């Protein structure tokens, strides 16, 4: 393969092992003498914990221990888990103990753990642990939680309101007072879980000889996990190594540090044997974090030409029983509403409510899909009421490319002013509408109607803050074998991180793509790291790979020039060799250069020669990047069954410069699938006592191969001026506007019946219910 890697449609380095059964996920790691853990979990959403009788379980053959909170080591015995993302608006305690102490706050909260010779025995024994509870009133619905006289999600708290905050700029009330039109929407939005195909998994082993605790965890953030473990176990950071091996999907919930990631290492230390815990799918439904419910009550003020004057409203967010990542999802949602539009005045008051459900933390999109849905529903409403085309209403309100950089007027979640660095929103929408043949749709719709079929089209636009800091690191080192070692704190749950970073490094260093030896997701490989979330790794790790690669390139050239006796400007690097472009073109391989760079024991290196051919870079972006895009969904609705089929799905996406179109297309396509799930299928349901009702893939549906069309994807690149690669981020853009586009398309398809939707997921029964209320069936049968 030639030197041109950046921007090429390169197939992935990850694939051959994963395709041949040689992947290595946590449960594939075999350690001699390993014991297996099973957690005993609360069957109640809210209860006082009166006592735990472990004797019957302990008496069973093959059971090694039953551990409750009081058996844990300090400081985790008494100390709640660290809060990773504090915010001054948070009023009360918001993280849990790794094992419940006096009170349980959601179904599935861990109260004890059984360790046995096999998972089978551990499960038997867990069922034999007798836990005595005194049930307390539970808070199920976040609207009830904030009502007068509501039961308390935490007995010790005087209120279920965890946080109230306002994001605002401009004189919004004046904007509404002077508006030609004001429209209001009440919106319910539900988002489910991440539902990675691999459940969570932890394996811990302590080596007494070196006092090193090694933890394999199916996590997006091994370096953060190590910090949390050090805090909770009272160990030095350097005595813990966290490895995220192959991880079977992330999507947000695996960015969080969980109780099990502290308990399993504590058990390995206590028992002096490796301990493994593999979450089962039911536990994943109960205990892995989700996003769940938001209720929006928003209004838009426009002038007679449909230009936006202001937007204001309220939003209520269900955080669940705790807030391990603070309030970032509602915060991001509140900051994402303005999107690609000029909105002169804006105010959103947000309230975050505690309920007795598993905590919410980011799921692919992290509050952004909800914000986009709210904004786009309002614009569709404006178009409908003023009898304008929906694309035209958006066109009249777009921020224009010449307005970049555009200051929205808010502070984003990175703590910096929300300033769009670049982007061409009108061009993105034009491209998507052209690719979707939006122009020709009304004719298609009429033809379908003539056949008695209901088809519709919908548009969703978004701007997404991506590439969040603080940093990610990459080390590049030339090895004596001539290969190039790369280590990074970035992680891989399917994003192709290994391939993308290899493309960047190979391009800089001038080595063969396949000669890169990469270690990622391993705290032993690089001192500091953050991990995967917020579509951040292309920006953070990508730019570090560029900077480290550039440095090593310069070192290689300087050393080769000296050794070959030529000018540095005459040295070229290609295929793992330094080649002089003068004389008889002498060549020296990277391996030999690496040996020379090690020097001779006792002999000083030549002046200016660094030790080894190595560089570590930690790129620290100055602010978030902002990618953007337009989605167009064309759907057919079966009015009799409420079934929705997506006929055509078109995406125009600006992720900045694209390192690998194969991978970015895959991220967009996969993101759209997740968005289809959010729009139509995924609904984590609870009863009024906060008992989960959907705890299997038979009850909670995620999209199948027949639900997701192959998208037409166009890259409308604008270069990000804020980083040297010009990249923005691609992991979540596919998901964010999908519900907005799809629900709009359903509404359009059913426009003969004048039904309106302001909710996700929009399930068939809700569609049929709306049609029934609208008298559609009388009309239908009359016609």
């Amino acid at each position, binding site marked *: 393969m030639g030197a041109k890697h950046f921007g090429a449609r390169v*197939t*992935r380095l*990850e*694939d*051959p*092992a*994963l*395709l*041949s*059964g*040689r*992947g*290595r*996920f946590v*449960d*594939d790691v*075999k350690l001699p003498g390993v014991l297996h853990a099973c957690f005993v979990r609360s069957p109640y959403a809210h209860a006082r914990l009166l006592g735990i009788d472990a004797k019957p379980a302990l008496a069973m053959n093959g059971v090694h221990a039953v551990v409750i909170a009081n058996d844990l080591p300090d400081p985790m015995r008494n100390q709640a888990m660290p809060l990773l993302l504090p915010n001054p608006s948070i009023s009360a305690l918001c993280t849990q103990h790794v094992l419940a102490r006096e009170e349980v706050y959601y179904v599935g909260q861990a109260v004890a753990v059984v360790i046995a010779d096999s998972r*089978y025995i551990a499960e038997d024994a867990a069922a034999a642990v007798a836990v005595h509870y005194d049930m307390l009133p539970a808070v199920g619905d976040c609207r009830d939680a904030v009502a007068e006289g509501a039961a308390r999600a935490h007995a010790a708290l005087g209120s279920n309101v965890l946080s109230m905050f306002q994001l605002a700029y401009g004189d919004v009330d004046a904007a509404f007072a002077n508006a030609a039109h004001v429209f209001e929407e009440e919106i319910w939005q539900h988002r489910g879980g*991440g*539902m*990675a*195909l*691999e*459940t969570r998994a932890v394996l811990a082993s302590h080596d007494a000889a070196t006092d090193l605790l090694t933890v394999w965890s199916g996590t997006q953030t091994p370096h953060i996990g190590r910090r949390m473990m050090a805090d909770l176990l009272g160990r030095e950071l350097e005595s813990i190594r966290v490895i995220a091996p*192959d*991880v*079977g*999907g*992330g*999507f947000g919930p695996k960015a969080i540090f969980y109780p099990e990631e502290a308990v399993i290492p504590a058990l390995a230390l206590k028992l002096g044997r490796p301990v493994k815990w593999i979450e*089962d*799918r039911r536990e994943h439904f109960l205990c892995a974090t989700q996003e769940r419910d938001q209720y929006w009550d928003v209004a838009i003020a426009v002038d007679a030409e449909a230009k936006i004057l202001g937007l204001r409203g309220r939003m209520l967010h269900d955080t669940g029983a705790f807030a391990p990542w603070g309030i970032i999802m509602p915060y991001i949602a509140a900051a994402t509403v303005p999107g690609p539009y000029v909105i002169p005045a804006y105010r959103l008051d947000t309230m975050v409510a505690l309920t007795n459900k598993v905590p919410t933390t980011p799921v692919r999109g992290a509050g952004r899909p909800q914000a986009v849905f709210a904004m786009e529903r309002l614009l569709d409403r404006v178009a409908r009421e003023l009898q304008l085309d929906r694309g035209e209403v958006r066109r009249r309100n777009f921020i224009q490319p010449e307005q970049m950089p555009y200051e929205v007027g808010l502070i984003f979640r990175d703590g910096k002013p929300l300033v769009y660095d670049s982007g061409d929103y009108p061009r993105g929408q034009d491209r998507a509408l052209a690719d979707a043949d939006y122009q020709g749709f009304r004719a298609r719709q009429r033809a379908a109607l003539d056949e008695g079929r209901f088809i519709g089209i919908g548009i969703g636009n978004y701007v997404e803050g991506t590439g969040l800091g603080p940093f990610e690191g990459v080390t590049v080192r030339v090895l004596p074998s001539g290969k190039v070692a790369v280590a990074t704190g970035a992680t891989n*749950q*399917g*994003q*192709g991180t290994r391939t993308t970073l290899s493309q960047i490094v190979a391009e800089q260093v001038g080595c063969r793509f396949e000669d890169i030896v990469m270690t990622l997701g391993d705290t032993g490989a690089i001192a500091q790291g953050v991990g995967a979330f917020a579509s951040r790794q292309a920006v953070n790790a990508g730019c570090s790979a560029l900077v480290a690669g550039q440095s090593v390139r310069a070192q290689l050239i300087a050393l080769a020039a000296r050794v070959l006796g030529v000018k540095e400007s005459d040295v070229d690097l290609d295929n793992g060799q330094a080649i002089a472009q003068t004389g008889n073109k002498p060549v020296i391989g990277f391996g030999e250069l690496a040996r020379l760079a090690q020097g001779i024991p006792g002999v000083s290196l030549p002046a200016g020669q660094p030790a080894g051919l190595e560089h570590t870079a930690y790129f620290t972006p100055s602010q978030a990047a902002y990618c953007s895009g337009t989605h167009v969904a064309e759907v057919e609705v079966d009015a009799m069954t409420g079934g929705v089929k997506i006929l055509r799905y078109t995406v125009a996406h600006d992720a900045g410069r694209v390192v690998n179109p*194969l*991978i970015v*297309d*895959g991220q967009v*396509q*996969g*993101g*759209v*699938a*997740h968005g289809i799930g959010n729009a139509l299928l995924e609904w984590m349901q609870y009863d009024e006592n906060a008992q989960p009702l959907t705890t*299997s*893939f*038979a009850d909670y549906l*995620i*999209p*199948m*191969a*027949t639900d*997701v069309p*192959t*998208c037409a994807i166009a890259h409308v690149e604008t270069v990000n001026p804020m980083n040297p690669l010009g990249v923005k981020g691609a992991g979540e853009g*596919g998901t964010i506007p999908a519900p907005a586009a799809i629900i709009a398309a359903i509404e359009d398809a059913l426009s003969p019946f004048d039904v309106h939707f302001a909710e996700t997921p929009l399930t068939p029964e809700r569609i049929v219910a709306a049609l029934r209320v609208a008298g559609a069936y009388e009309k239908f049968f009359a016609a």
Partner: protein
Amino acid sequence: MSKQPTRLTVNGKAHARVVESRLTLADFLRHELGLTGTHLGCEHGVCGACTVLLDGRSARSCLMFAVQANGCEVTTVEGLTPDDGLSVLQQAFVDNHGLQCGFCTPGMLITLTELLRENPAPSEDEVREALTGNLCRCTGYAGIVKAALDAAERLRNGRGS
């Protein structure tokens, strides 16, 4: 726990073991035989990651006991893989970005192996229908469907790659 002697052939190799009656075939393959390519995503028969061929037909290895496979021939993803390199279908997955995290992939490969054997020229709809027993959360299925159609064509044309 009661144990039973079990004999079965996995990827062409005969095994005779005495196993607990309640041991699932998936756990037997993964932990007794070390064939960790077969994955468990739900353990209730929906996600399809654990799919293997049982006497040539696709089956959920999470939903049956190892002892029920007594006397059977089992093929796992390891058994689909040539000693040297990748099969036509596997290579088509590489070329068409048919996988991201790779967790569902072994089940996908097994299902499609069965499909392409029975229907060497499937339509896109037939591929999608066949895949409804296998969930993928990463790819949105487009690359998988493309890989299946691509592999079918390569196999029909007798091209190895």
